[in-house]
């Protein structure tokens, strides 16, 4: 085997320029796809991290109160049981916070738009102020305006509002009654994705008042974990303990449900239920941002498709080159066969050569991707731009998982070997006399 390997490796050095060109073609494909994989994976993590910074948590609990046949009221009046369960679960968490949120119709000078208003404790939530990037307005005036509203750029354009304008919000209180409230536009933030385009922020106290919540009441209890990675495991642990303290909604999705996000399934199944008192639903930032995950899966599929298309083109080149190589070395193949090389040995030699070519190309591709990612991630784009939600602290980040590298490795190896298998087969099938050119 050592000799086969030696010959295969040395054969690659016979036509250095040709080998280099093929390796560059492979390396280019591998580099592009590695960067795509690294980017999509990091974007999903960054969006989730940035949102969990803004909302102050990775795990969220909302309370739904029901008495007899009365309408469901979304509020948490006493969170002691939630805190006790959290302590008992033994989860390592950074802090807990609370907020309210509601869908509202915003009206300004005859123009309307629908929007999610989140009531946040802006003063105490430093992370929120760090993560939400303002295009217009400043935090000082937001903090001093009790009915301040921060709207996304797109909403500001739709309503044609500027800083200082007062808008009317039509809101349904927690009791199901219609109510209106006044908000002063104090900030306009950048928006890069669908979730940010539909979310606005105000002070908890002002939103609670319009929602009809009493002082001390709120709607969402948020648990901030040290890292996003721990979210699913921690949520599971917390949920298992929480079941023993309070009534909780089932977290399982409908068995016969059509394809949908976990969060949608959760809400759909819970709407059909009937209960007495307060029942809590627990969900995670991952479930809330399931659409982002879908985007990432789509981007990954695109990445794999790009890899395969780029490589199919490269395969044609590799196939042609190895056909050429076969004719160039036809006498050599004949000699080897005459000396005692079996057909499978000839085939193996070609495949080994292709395998090493693929390996050189892949290593170069990974190396180039690493350099490219290092350069791009060192650039600071700042937080005040439209894509802040996709970035981490103003930097494009890359998150390359081992499974993705393994996928690239397997696909490229298989396709390279496939590209060479036909010429290799043809070379192996040559009769020694034919190959030595002595038949005529």
């Amino acid at each position, binding site marked *: 085997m*050592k*000799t086969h390997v*030696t*010959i295969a490796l*040395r*054969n690659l*050095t*016979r036509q250095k320029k040709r080998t280099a060109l093929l390796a560059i073609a492979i390396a280019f494909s591998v580099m592009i796809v590695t960067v795509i994989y690294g980017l999509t994976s990091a974007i999903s993590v960054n969006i989730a991290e940035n949102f969990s910074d803004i909302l102050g948590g990775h795990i969220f609990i909302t309370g739904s109160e029901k008495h007899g046949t009365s309408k469901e009221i979304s509020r948490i009046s006493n969170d002691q049981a939630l805190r006790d369960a959290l302590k008992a679960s033994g989860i390592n968490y950074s802090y807990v916070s609370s907020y309210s949120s509601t869908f509202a119709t915003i009206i300004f000078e005859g123009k309307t738009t629908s929007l999610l208003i989140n009531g946040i404790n802006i003063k105490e939530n430093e992370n929120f102020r760090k993560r939400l990037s303002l295009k217009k307005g400043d935090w000082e005036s937001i903090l001093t305006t009790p009915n301040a509203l921060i709207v996304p750029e797109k909403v500001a354009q739709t309503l044609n509002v500027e800083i200082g304008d007062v808008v009317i919000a039509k809101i349904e209180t927690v009791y199901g009654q219609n109510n209106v409230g006044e908000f002063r536009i104090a900030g306009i933030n950048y928006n890069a994705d669908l979730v940010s385009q539909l979310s606005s922020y105000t002070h908890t106290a002002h939103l609670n008042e319009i929602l009809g919540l009493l002082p001390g009441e709120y709607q969402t209890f948020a648990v901030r974990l040290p890292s996003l990675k721990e979210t699913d495991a921690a949520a599971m642990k917390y949920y298992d303990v929480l079941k023993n303290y309070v009534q909780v909604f089932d977290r399982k999705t409908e068995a016969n449900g059509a394809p949908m996000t976990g969060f949608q399934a959760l809400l759909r199944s819970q709407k059909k239920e009937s209960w007495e008192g307060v029942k809590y639903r627990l969900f995670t930032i991952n479930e809330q941002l399931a659409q982002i995950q879908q985007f990432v899966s789509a981007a990954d599929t695109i990445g794999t498709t790009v890899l395969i298309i780029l490589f199919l083109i490269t395969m044609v080149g590799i196939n042609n080159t190895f056909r050429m190589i076969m004719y160039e070395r036809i*006498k*050599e193949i*004949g*000699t*080897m*066969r*005459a*000396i*005692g*090389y*079996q*057909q499978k*040995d000839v085939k193996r030699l070609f495949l080994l050569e292709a395998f090493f070519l693929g390996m050189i190309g892949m290593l170069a591709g990974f190396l180039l991707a690493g350099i490219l990612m290092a350069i791009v991630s060192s650039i600071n784009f700042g937080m005040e731009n439209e894509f802040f939600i996709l970035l981490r602290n103003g930097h494009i980040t890359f998150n390359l998982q081992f499974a993705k590298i393994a996928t690239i490795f397997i696909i490229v190896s298989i396709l390279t070997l496939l590209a060479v298998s036909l010429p290799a087969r043809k070379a192996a099938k040559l*009769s*020694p*006399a034919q190959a*030595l050119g*002595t*038949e*005529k």
Partner: protein
Amino acid sequence: MPIISLENVKKTYYLGKVEVEAVKGVSFCIEKGDFISIAGPSGSGKTTILNMIGLIDKPTSGEVIIDDKPTSKLSDRELTKMRHQVLGFIFQSFNLIPVLNVWENIEFPLLIGETRIAPQEKKEWIDHLIEEVGLTEWKKHKPNELSGGQRQRVAIARALVTRPYIVLADEPTANLDSKTGEQIIELMKKINSELDTTFIFSTHDAKIVSIADHIIRLKDGEVIENVRKGEPQPAECR
């Protein structure tokens, strides 16, 4: 008992739709240890007969028997194994593997399949062969750094490395000047007497033919002369 027997061997080629009868029913025997020349002009069928003896081509009809074994029904795998273990080849254009150096080229046949050379004996045997062909100083050199004569010496050592019973050489001196050609034939003759290996070589050089002790002369695909030195009668199968 002859080591090689050809029994009414015919070989027909098709050049497009034209049938070419390259060998027309040839029969002869070769004894173990023979130093035999297959002589004849171009197109007489020398190479075709050597290829059939060397099991790299199959007769259209007839039988080639090597070491008492009929070969016409053997599979490609079995033929390859037999080529590896029983036969050695020397080619007109040397046919060395360009990416391997002298030592590696000679070693190459020992690395594929089973051989009669024990692993611990290998290095010493290759060094001995290199010394025998006078290339000790050149063993780390690649073929493109050697002269034609040196390359053919490497090919001779490579052909002998598996200790084959028979070495086939197709016009081994055709690409060499006459002096080097004679040296190569003398080297082959020396090894033939030292190792008792059967050497069969084709040539159209009368001077080289005269060195052989068994001459088979061909013309238009037929044997026109089959004689052993010192024997007045045509050579017969014993």
